[in-house]
C-alpha cells in the first residue's frame, strides 16, 4: 500500500468511528411505519429546517424552467455556521398538498436541488437534505423535461460534491425520487421513516400480483429504519417520541440538530478530496454481501483516485 492510500485509509477509519447507535423501538410493524411515515401531521422538512436554524432564507427556482414547490431549498444558519438545506415538501394541508404535488417533484425540483448544492460547494457550505417523498412525479411534463436525466445528474454530482452532505429520511423515502437528494456522506432515518425501491402497494401488485397484499409486502421488502441499519445502508436511526414524531416534534428536531452538529464538526475538518474519496468508496462498497470490499476492488478504486481530480 502506498503512502497516499495509507493516508486515505486512516482518514476513513477515523470517520467510521463517528456514528453512535441508538436502538429503535422494536414494537412497530413495517406497515405501521409505512402509515406513520405518510401521516398528514408528521413534521415536515420545512418544520425541521425552521426548528434547527437560527435564521433561514428560502431560495427559489432552478434557473431553467421554474420553481418546483415540491422541493424546498435555501440557506440557514446554525450557530456560527451557514448551511444549505434541501428538502421535499408535501404541504401541511389539502390545499398545500395539491400545490406541492404531494411531494412528488418534477425535473425542475431536482435541478433546483442541484443548483443549491453547487452553490453550497462554491461557498464551502455543508448541505443537509430532508427526504420525504412518495417518489418523483410520473407525469407527462416530467418525462418531456427529462426526469430521468435530472435524477441521474444529481446522483453523479452529489457523489463528488466537495462539501459535506448529510441526508435524513424523515418520512417516506420513495425510490429514485428520494435517492435524487439522498447521496451523501451520512444517511440517517427517523425511527418510523421508510425507504424502499417501490411502494409496498406497487410491490404487492407487481411481484405478488395482489394489491391487497401491501402489508405483507412491506414486511418482505425490509424497508424500516431497523432493516436498513442492519443492511448498513443507513448510518444511524434518529429517535422519535414513543407515539411518533408528530407527538413531540421538538424532541426529534433536537436529535437531528445534535446529529448535524456532531457530524459537521467532524466532516468539516476533512479536506474536500478525502471527503469525496470516502464517499465514493462507501458507495462503491454498498453491497456488503457481494463482498465487493475485497482488496482488489479497493486497490482498483484507490488507483483510479490517483487518476482523478476530485
Amino acid at each position, binding site marked *: 500500500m502506498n503512502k497516499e492510500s495509507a493516508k486515505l485509509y486512516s482518514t476513513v477509519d477515523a470517520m467510521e468511528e463517528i456514528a453512535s447507535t441508538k436502538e429503535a423501538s422494536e414494537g412497530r410493524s413495517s406497515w405501521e411505519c409505512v402509515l406513520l411515515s405518510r401521516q398528514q401531521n408528521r413534521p415536515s422538512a420545512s418544520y425541521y429546517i425552521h426548528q434547527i436554524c437560527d435564521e433561514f432564507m428560502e431560495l427559489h427556482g432552478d434557473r431553467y424552467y421554474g420553481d418546483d414547490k415540491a422541493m424546498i431549498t435555501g440557506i440557514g444558519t446554525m450557530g456560527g455556521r451557514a448551511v444549505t438545506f434541501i428538502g421535499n415538501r408535501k404541504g401541511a394541508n389539502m390545499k398545500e398538498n395539491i400545490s406541492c404535488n404531494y411531494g412528488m417533484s418534477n425535473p425542475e425540483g431536482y435541478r433546483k436541488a442541484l443548483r443549491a448544492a453547487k452553490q453550497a460547494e462554491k461557498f464551502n457550505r455543508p448541505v443537509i437534505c430532508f427526504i420525504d417523498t412518495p417518489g418523483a412525479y410520473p407525469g407527462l411534463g416530467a418525462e418531456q423535461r427529462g426526469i430521468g*436525466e435530472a*435524477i*441521474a445528474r444529481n446522483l453523479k*454530482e452529489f457523489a463528488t460534491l466537495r462539501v459535506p452532505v448529510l441526508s435524513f429520511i424523515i418520512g417516506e423515502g420513495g425510490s429514485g425520487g428520494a435517492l435524487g437528494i439522498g447521496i451523501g456522506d451520512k444517511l440517517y432515518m427517523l425511527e418510523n421513516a421508510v425507504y424502499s425501491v417501490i411502494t409496498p402497494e406497487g410491490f404487492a401488485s407487481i411481484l405478488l400480483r395482489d394489491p391487497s397484499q401491501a402489508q405483507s409486502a412491506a414486511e418482505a421488502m425490509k424497508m424500516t429504519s431497523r432493516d436498513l441499519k442492519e443492511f448498513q445502508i443507513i448510518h444511524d436511526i434518529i429517535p422519535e417520541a414513543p407515539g411518533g414524531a408528530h407527538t413531540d416534534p421538538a424532541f426529534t428536531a433536537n436529535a437531528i440538530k445534535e446529529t448535524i452538529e456532531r457530524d459537521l464538526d467532524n466532516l468539516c475538518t476533512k479536506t474536500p478530496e478525502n471527503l469525496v474519496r470516502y464517499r465514493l468508496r462507501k458507495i462503491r462498497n454498498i453491497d456488503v454481501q457481494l463482498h465487493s470490499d475485497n482488496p482488489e476492488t479497493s486497490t482498483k478504486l484507490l488507483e483510479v483516485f490517483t*487518476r*482523478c481530480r476530485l
Partner: protein
Amino acid sequence: MSKQIQCPSCHRVFDYDVVASYMKVCPKCGYHHRLTPAERISSIADGNSFAEFPFTYAFPNPIGLEGYQEKISQSRDKANLEEAVITGECTIDGRPCVVAVMSFDFMGGSMGSVVGEKIAEAMIEGALRHEPVIIFTASGGARMQEGIFSLMQMAKTSAAAALLEKSLTPLFIVLTHPTTGGVTASFAMLGDVNLAEKGALIGFAGPRVIEGTIGEKLPAGFQSAEFQLEKGFIDAIVAREDMKKTLSFLIRVHMGEHSNE
C-alpha cells in the same frame, strides 16, 4: 427450409437468415428485432476481439425474498446468460474499449446488485485503462426482488460514471428498446454522448404508470427515441448498420488521434 419469422410491426414473414443478414432489422419496415448480447457485440467489435470479464459473483438474495433464487435459475436457462448484463473488452477498428451489453431477456434487464456491480466495475476498469466505455442499455429498471439494494445500484453506477468523468475517460451510451426506470435515472443518461436505436422506448416512468397518473392515453411516439431526440436528451439515433462506424468515430475523436492537447 430455413426458419421463418414474422415482423411484429409490419407482420410480413421473412426467412430468418434474411432478417439476420440485415442485423435483425426488418428489411421492409425497419423494425428492430432484439439482439442477444453476443449478436450485439459481434455487430460492433472487431472479429474475435471480445473477451468477457470473468463472472465471479455468488447469487445474492439481499432481502431474502422467497422464490427469487428459482426466478434467477429460470432466467439463466431461458436467456442462456448468467445475468442481465455482459461486460468485457474488445477492439473497434483496432482501438481498445470496455463494453457492457444489457439483456432485456434476463428478468427484463432489471438492475440488481450483480448487474450494478458489473456495470460499475466496467466503468472503473475503463477509467483505470483510460479506454472508452460503451454501454448498450435495455432494462425495465431496478430489480425489485432485491429491495433497497436494487435502488443502491443507481447510486453505485452513477458514482462510477462520476469517476469516469473525473478521469477524463469518455462514456458512450447506446439506449436500446426498452430503457426505463432506475437505469434511465442513472448511468443511462450520463453518457458524454447518448445514442439510441430507432423506435426504442426510453423514459423514467413506464407508459402505463403515466397513463394511470394523467388518466388518459399517451400520444403516439411518447418516450420514443425520436421523442427523446426532439426533447434534447439524446445526441443521435443511429442505424444498426452504422453503429460500429459511429462508435469508431467517437472513439477516434476522443482518444488522442485528433488531440487538441
